[in-house]
């Protein structure tokens, strides 16, 4: 097991390396840089701009910039913001908890909504309830989360005259305000995710319900609840967990939009702002952190397989 985890982590580092190189080059291929954008209307001469670029190391060739960045990053130095001069690692550390909280909250909500509805659809296969839930979940899959966010915000403010409190508060400082701020973006992210969880849970539970050991459990005289939750659902979890692991990518992408809409100071809004002003070190580092989160979640998913299914544990 430890050997397996180590192997996955080494593999993960390679993935991150490739990813960060890719982003590094893409970012520099986009026209405009931080100096041009910052000093565009200040009347600075091209010579002054070049001097500033040289100071930031932006005059070197892309390859050399990459080598510099990588060698610093490996030593734990993610550089300074080109805009504010603040340490990138510091900025990320203050912003990371917001995104983690948002992501965890969305996943938990998605599971709470998705799994029971999926189980109900499977148990009531082809009934009116099933068809109704199918329409709802396909609707949930089709609605873009930013649209849902805007509708929710507008709806709440028009009907209830309520909008989430402004000015971010952390959960530790003020749990009530924090939850009021977090809940709406989390539910917007959760609805898309839960819709796919519903579909996956439904088909996985249906498949398990048709397997022979379910008949054995019924022949023991077990109550229907035991048959469904203890046996059918438990055996379906592998597929549901796999799905959640894969959907984490979409979820993290969603935080970029939703944090911006709800003015949450997380990594998502950070990357959004930094791309606009071409703050290369921040964009690169944030993408790196997002990538690492995705890889870690999927490693966790693979470890959970073993916990869910003893046959996988053996391998």
């Amino acid at each position, binding site marked *: 097991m430890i050997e397996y985890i180590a192997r996955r982590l080494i593999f993960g580092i390679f993935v991150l390396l490739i990813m960060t190189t890719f982003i590094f080059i893409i970012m520099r291929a986009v026209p405009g840089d931080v100096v041009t954008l910052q000093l565009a209307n200040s009347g600075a001469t091209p010579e002054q701009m070049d001097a500033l670029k040289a100071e930031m190391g932006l005059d070197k060739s892309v390859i050399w910039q990459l080598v510099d960045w990588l060698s610093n990053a490996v030593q734990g130095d993610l550089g300074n913001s080109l805009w504010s001069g603040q340490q990138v690692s510091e900025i990320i550390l203050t912003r990371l908890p917001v995104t983690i909280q948002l992501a965890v909250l969305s996943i938990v909500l998605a599971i709470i909504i998705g799994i029971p509805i999926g189980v109900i659809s499977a148990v009531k296969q082809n009934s009116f309830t099933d068809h109704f839930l199918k329409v709802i979940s396909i609707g949930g899959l089709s609605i873009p989360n930013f649209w849902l966010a805007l509708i929710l915000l507008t709806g709440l403010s028009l009907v209830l005259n309520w909008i989430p409190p402004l000015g971010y508060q952390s959960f530790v400082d003020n749990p009530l305000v924090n939850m009021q701020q977090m809940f709406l973006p989390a539910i917007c992210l959760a609805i898309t995710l839960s819709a796919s969880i519903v579909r996956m849970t439904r088909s996985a539970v249906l498949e398990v319900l048709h397997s022979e050991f379910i008949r054995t459990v019924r022949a023991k*005289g077990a109550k229907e609840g035991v048959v469904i939750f203890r046996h059918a659902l438990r*055996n379906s979890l592998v597929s549901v967990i796999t799905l959640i692991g894969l959907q984490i990518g979409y979820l993290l992408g969603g935080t970029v939009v939703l944090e911006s809409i709800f003015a949450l100071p997380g990594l998502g809004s950070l990357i959004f702002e930094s791309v606009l002003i071409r703050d290369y070190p921040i964009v690169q580092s944030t993408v790196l952190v997002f990538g690492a989160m995705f890889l870690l979640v999927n490693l966790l998913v693979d470890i959970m397989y073993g916990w869910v299914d003893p046959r996988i544990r053996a391998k």
Partner: protein
Amino acid sequence: MAENSNTLLKVEEMKTVFKTRAGNLEAVDGVSFSITKGETVAIVGESGSGKSVSALSILRLLDSNGEVTSGKILFNDLNLKDLSAEEIRKIRGNEIAMIFQDPMTCLDPVYTIGDQIIETIKIHEDLSKQELRERALELLKLVGLPDPESRIDAYPHQLSGGQRQRVMIAIALACRPNLIIADEPTTALDVTVQAQIMELLKDLQSQFGTAIILVTHDLGVVAEMADKVVVVYAGQVVEQSDVKELFQKPQHPYTEALMRSIPKIDTDKNRRLLTIKGNVPSLREIPSGCRFHPRCPLATEKCKSEEPPLFEVAENRVSKCWIADSSIQDKRKVPTLIEEPDSNFEVNEHLVNKQLLLDVNNLQKHFPITKGVLSRTVGHVKAVDGVSLNIHKGEVLGLVGESGCGKSTVGRLITGLIESTNGDVSFDGKQLSSANRKDKKAIRKRIQFVFQDPYSSLNPRMTILDIIGEPLEVHNLAKGNTKRQRVGELLEIVGLSKNDMHKFPHQFSGGQRQRIGIARALATEPDLLICDEAVSALDVSVQAQILNLLKDLQLKMGLSYLFISHDLNVVKYISDRIAVMYLGEIVEVTDSDTLFKEPLHPYSQALISAVPIPNPVIQPDRIILKGEVPSPSNPPSGCKFHTRCPAAMDICKQQKPELKAISNVHTVSCHLYGEEQKA
């Protein structure tokens, strides 16, 4: 039928209907039978006869679209049909328990076997955690699971098939039910394990007086286990009788045909098997009158229009056939209902000059087991470990052994479907390993394969013309019109019609599909057919048709077969010589009559004695082997069989016995024979 005060379960006129989009299907149509305490009643029939549905109907465990619509299921005067869901739940597992066919899929993979036994007890009884575990342990000991203390926390995938079936039985016995319904409890098991499980069931029955309803298609198992037999066909009971009387003289033509269509150890190989024409009818197209009439050799006009009632032919004996009507009593005096047509095979002329066709020498196939970051090889599964055999022109060599012994791998190695690790195969004097591509292709043309499962071995999206024509095109033998003509001929050779060539596989029954598979194999005019379990997936009544076809083809075309099967009766019937395999090695080769008359190797002896004999009068003198086949990745030292051998000696543990010729037709690898005899 006479009432008995001891009656435990009485099923009267039970009807089970499945609602489908295409209409209602009556899977069980008016089945009646009863069982008394401690008795075993067998429900026998082919697939689609409604035997399993009948069994599941009793406890109402049908799929959600199935329902018992009429009749009574009286269990201790309680009509199970009318109970509420909650009431029947309390009977399931408690008073009536079930054992299912496939122990590989019938246990929940994510819970330990202990938990699964405990679950049953917990549902029906209120015990402490400690007591529950003790009960589970006691049950595992009872069903003879080796080392129960440590196995109780094992997961199903860590156990072998036979061990899992023991766990299933332990679950069934958990609450000491009065009745166990066993649905094909031994069908998925190897013969030696089947013998163990049948022994166990009989033991437990005499110990606890449990009644057993045994659902099976295997008449051998019926003869050995049952007291009473209910024969079902197309959802109806056609005959019901005491087991001895039934086997002595069946009263319904279906029963008799069924019994005579399966090859038995004492079946004369030169005689054609009695076949039942056609196929088991689909529930959507149930024939009028007597449901068996389209397939019955004795059918008259009356049978087509009028459904016969159940005639009481003797005490506790009924038959649903007009022949049993007392007004035409005389017919029953003839010894058999169905008179046989001219039914001997011709003499096989191709065998006379003993020309060697296939010579396999020390064939080995070791599959590597890999581990770790760099996929290091940490061991080998020795699937085939030094097999030598030969086949002459026109000869059938049977290859028998239990699952995992490597017999299918041998077939694949010979056809070149997989590469061998070591050893060589020469075909008609040419060595396969040293042949160039062109020669290899030419040899492959002459060795063809017939697969086990006719449902998955034909591409569902190709027409029969394309399926059979494919090998013709691959080997550049025919194209266009000539191909069409050749496919037509091939279809007629295997007993199908030319007009079938534009159909798709799903339009055929299992038996017909296997004929298509054979036609495809014959397309390149091969000399050798490798038949890997070629009749195992077929219904018994269809199996005889295919066996007769294979024999006819052998005689007509001078074909040779390597006939791989786990079914000893079938192998005995079709083979000239038989090789017995155990754990990747051949332990004995001899002609088929000798093998069954005087098997020398203790494994062959046990294997043959384990085959259930469809005759309730004979009490088999059975050698029950201990345990199960060891893993081929870590085979025992010396003679690989010594861990299970009843005659194992010290030398067997250390020294591997060589294959020794005992006579010019008999070779065996066992320390019991050889040196001492020569001396």
